[in-house]
Structure formats: structure tokens, C-alpha cells
């Protein structure tokens, strides 16, 4: 299905204060792909994501979602296609209860109330948060907030799921739960993250950004084995690819 694809051509963006965040960036993401976007702080990850559903519009170049260019006119259609999970779930949850928060998107889409209810229930069930329906969002734990924030987006049934640092500030158990949850999604997934182990777990393709342009775009396993590249991008190998610190220590002791 063509509306699950994403094409970016020569995208440049300069912030009003003159900071050039992206320069002539081009990429294509196909239907059902799971792509990690990694890079140092300030490499342009969040700016890039902000272009995918028109929170920012390009200074130069084009962004096409499912064949439609992202412009002011197409924004309503684009925002139905691209679901964005923000870095801080507190920014995303603004209604008095979890239920109303998840219903906000479907209600705005003009769905009848029976459909809204069905979608909210389905989305909350998917993320395992149905029992939180009547709770106020600010009372939830970090992991619950993240799950509900994802549900708010799922309820709109987007074709492409975009996430900014989904595992940030989660405890290891909640992080693992989230990874398992994301693994079950068949959406096209685009995940900007510093959690390279999660990228290795979930994404078959990785794009490394540096100074607003693509340093490397390739299979995740290959990218994470390229140590000079990682060093250049201010990254390091995922822990799961590194030697066990205990083993290497004991090996070191043996050689001494």
C-alpha cells in the first residue's frame, strides 16, 4: 500500500535563529520497514521527525508521505497517516482521563461515538492499559504514561508510526515490555533513539545522522559493527554486541 511509504528529497531546515539543523537530506522508507534513526545530540534526529507530520515544514526540499507532499493543505491527511509519539509523554497527555485522552484523536477525526469507543478500547488493550481508562494521566508511572501515549496514537490507526526516544526514562522492565509491544506492530516504524540495543532488537535498518545529514544508511547489524563510523557519529556499539565486561575483565586478569 503506497500510503505507508515515505520519501524525503533534499530536505534542508534552518531554525529561525539561524541554526542549520538539516542539510540536503534524502531518503526513502518503504512499506512495513522498521527504521532506527541514530546520532549524537544535536545531529538533527528530532528535527527530522518533526518534518514527518508537518510540525516543521522544510526550508528547502520536499517530504512525501504515501505520495502526498507535506504542505499546509495536506496536513490533516498527513497527520492521519503518520502517528507521532513524543519524547515526553507528559506533553502528549492533556485530557482529564486516559480514556478521554485516547479518544481525543478519533473524536477529532469525526468518528461516531460507537467507533470512538471501539478504537479506544482496542488501542488501550493493545498496550495493556485498559484498566487505566478512568485514571488521570498525571497519576500514572513513566511506563504507563508511555504506553498510554502510544495508545493515543494507535487509536488513530496511523499507517506510519514515528517515535522519538520511546525508551527514554523507562526502567529496564518497562523498556523490555515496550520493545516487545513494538515488535508486534506491523506498521512502518521510524524510531529516533540513543538506545542502540533497542534499535538492534527492533529495526532491520539504521540511519546514522551527523550534523544534519546522513552519515550512513544500511542494515542495522552492519552499521553497528562499523566501529570507526560509530565513533565518528559519537556513538558506541550496542552493549549486546560488546564483549561481556565481566568476561573481558577476567580474561584481562588471566593475561596479566
Amino acid at each position, binding site marked *: 500500500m503506497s500510503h505507508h511509504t515515505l520519501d524525503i528529497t533534499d530536505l534542508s531546515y534552518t531554525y529561525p535563529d539561524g541554526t542549520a539543523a538539516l542539510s540536503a537530506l534524502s531518503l526513502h522508507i518503504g512499506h512495513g520497514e522498521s527504521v532506527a534513526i541514530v546520532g549524537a545530540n544535536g545531529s538533527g534526529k528530532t528535527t527530522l521527525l518533526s518534518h514527518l*507530520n508537518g*510540525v516543521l515544514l522544510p526550508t528547502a526540499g520536499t517530504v512525501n508521505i504515501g505520495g502526498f507532499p507535506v504542505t499546509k493543505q495536506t*496536513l*490533516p491527511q498527513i*497527520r*492521519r497517516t503518520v*502517528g*507521532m509519539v*513524543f519524547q*515526553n509523554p507528559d*506533553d*502528549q497527555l*492533556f*485530557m*482529564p*482521563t486516559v480514556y*478521554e485522552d485516547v*479518544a*481525543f*484523536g478519533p*473524536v*477529532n*477525526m*469525526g468518528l461516531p*461515538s460507537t467507533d470512538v469507543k471501539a478504537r479506544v478500547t482496542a488501542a488501550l488493550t493493545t498496550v495493556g492499559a485498559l484498566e487505566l481508562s*478512568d485514571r*488521570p494521566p*498525571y497519576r500514572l508511572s513513566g511506563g504507563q504514561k508511555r504506553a498510554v501515549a502510544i495508545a*493515543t*496514537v494507535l487509536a*488513530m490507526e496511523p499507517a506510519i508510526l514515528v517515535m522519538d526516544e520511546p525508551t527514554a526514562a523507562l526502567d529496564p522492565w518497562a523498556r523490555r515490555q515496550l520493545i516487545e509491544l513494538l515488535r508486534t506492530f506491523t506498521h512502518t516504524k521510524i524510531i529516533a533513539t540513543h538506545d542502540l540495543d533497542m534499535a538492534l532488537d527492533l529495526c532491520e535498518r539504521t540511519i546514522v545522522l551527523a550534523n544534519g545529514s546522513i552519515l550512513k544508511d544500511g542494515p542495522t547489524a552492519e552499521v553497528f559493527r562499523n566501529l570507526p563510523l560509530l565513533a565518528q557519529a559519537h556513538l558506541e556499539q550496542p552493549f549486546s554486541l560488546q564483549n561481556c565486561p565481566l568476561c573481558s575483565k577476567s580474561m584481562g586478569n588471566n593475561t596479566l
Partner: protein
Amino acid sequence: MVKLESNWLDLRTLDELALQKTPIHQLGAGTKLGTTLAFIMVIASFSRYEVTGLIPCVFYPIVLITLGRLPYQLLLKRLLLVAPVILFIGLFNPLFDRVPVAAVGPLVVTGGWISFLSISVKLILTITAALILIATTGIHAICSTLYRLGVPQPLVVQILFMYRYIHVLLEEVLKTLQAYQLRSCHNSGIGYQAWGSLLGQLLLRTIARAQRIYQAMLCRGYDGHIILETTAARKKPDLLYFAGWLLFFSLCRLVNLPQWLGTFITGGLP
């Protein structure tokens, strides 16, 4: 700072109380809004020297607080917050209106003191009624009802956003104050040199945060028109509730109940 934090928590307590499922909470928002407005209008219509006639009206908040299972303490604390306003509104009445109206032994009571008392009671009653409305209905339901009643959408959206952003602003205030306190050696208040930058920071951070929330709303299809879901009211209990209170308010307004009761008990009834 601790005080500020507890007030902020109180703000949310009011929202949480609104999620209860008592008979009062289950009434339609329109019914409760209408009853509250009627109550406020009746209270406001009493003459400025009326005190005894107002006493039976206390019955309304007491019944609602009890049936709605609202904590008295919380409402009292809120009333204390507005107490200075009440005091200042009526403060000059005893000074300007010195006409004696009664004498209790050597103590002469002037009209000013009576009207001061009357204003205080009126304000306490109306503010309590408004607080009860929020604590039993929730701001969202109230706003959707206002919209249904024909209040312009921009106004309703303003109220909703203002309520939402109070939390955002307070959260930023608390974080900023905490950061300041942790790095200031003296812990009493904030040095005047820091006020400028603290307030500036607060403004910028609040704007940034508000923008992110707004973007999140845009991403979920918000286009300036908030679609407020309204629950279908159960007609009969709502009508009974409204009619019952209206009857009671009219009775309080038309008949001075305490005086009537006094005359009745002392046998002075014609």
C-alpha cells in the same frame, strides 16, 4: 515552596473528586450548572442588609457536599484562599454606612456591619457553590455544557486551555523553584537579583512546553475546533433535582424562613 506544592496538588484533587460516581456526580452537567447559576442569582438578589434570610441557603452546599462525598476541609481551604478578597470587598461598608440599626446593650450595630456580614455570607455561599460544581462535574463537562448552551466556542476553548495550562505553569514554577533552592545556600525566599531571570526562564519554559502540547494536539487532528463529547442526561432525576432546588430557592427568597420559624415556635403566628 511546600505550600505552593500542596496548592497545586489541591488543584488536581478537585479534578479527581469530579471522577467520583455519587448520585450528584451522575446528574447531567447542564442540570448542575443551571442549579448553581440559579442559586447564585437567588443569593445575589437578597437585599444588602439581609442576613437571617440567607441562613437556610446554607442547606444547599451542605446537602451537595454530603451527597457528593466532598471533603469539607478541601473546600474550606479554597475559601481561605479567597478570604482576603471577601474581606476587602466589604471592608469599607462599616466605615461609610454608620446608620445605627440595632443596639445590643451598650453595643450599637450599624448598617455597615450588617451589610459587611451579608456580603461575606453571600460570597462564601456563591464561591462554595462554584467549587462544588467543579468538584462534582469536572471542568470538561462544564465547558461542553456551556458550549451546548450557545457560549461561543473560542470562549469555551479559552477556559479549557487556561485550566489545562495552569497545571503546566505550576509544574514549571515548582521545577524552577526547586532548582533554585537546591543551589542557593540561604533557604528563605528568593533573592531579588534572581527574580528577573527566574521569571524570564519560567515564561520561556512555559511557552515551550505549551507549544509542545499544542503540537501534540495538532498531531491528533485538532484544528481549532474542540469537539466536546456530551453525555446524554437522564431526564427524570435531573428534572426533579432542578425543580426541587428551584422550589427551595424560591421559598428561601420569598419567605424569611428563620423569622417564620421563630414566630411559629414562639406562638406569634397570626
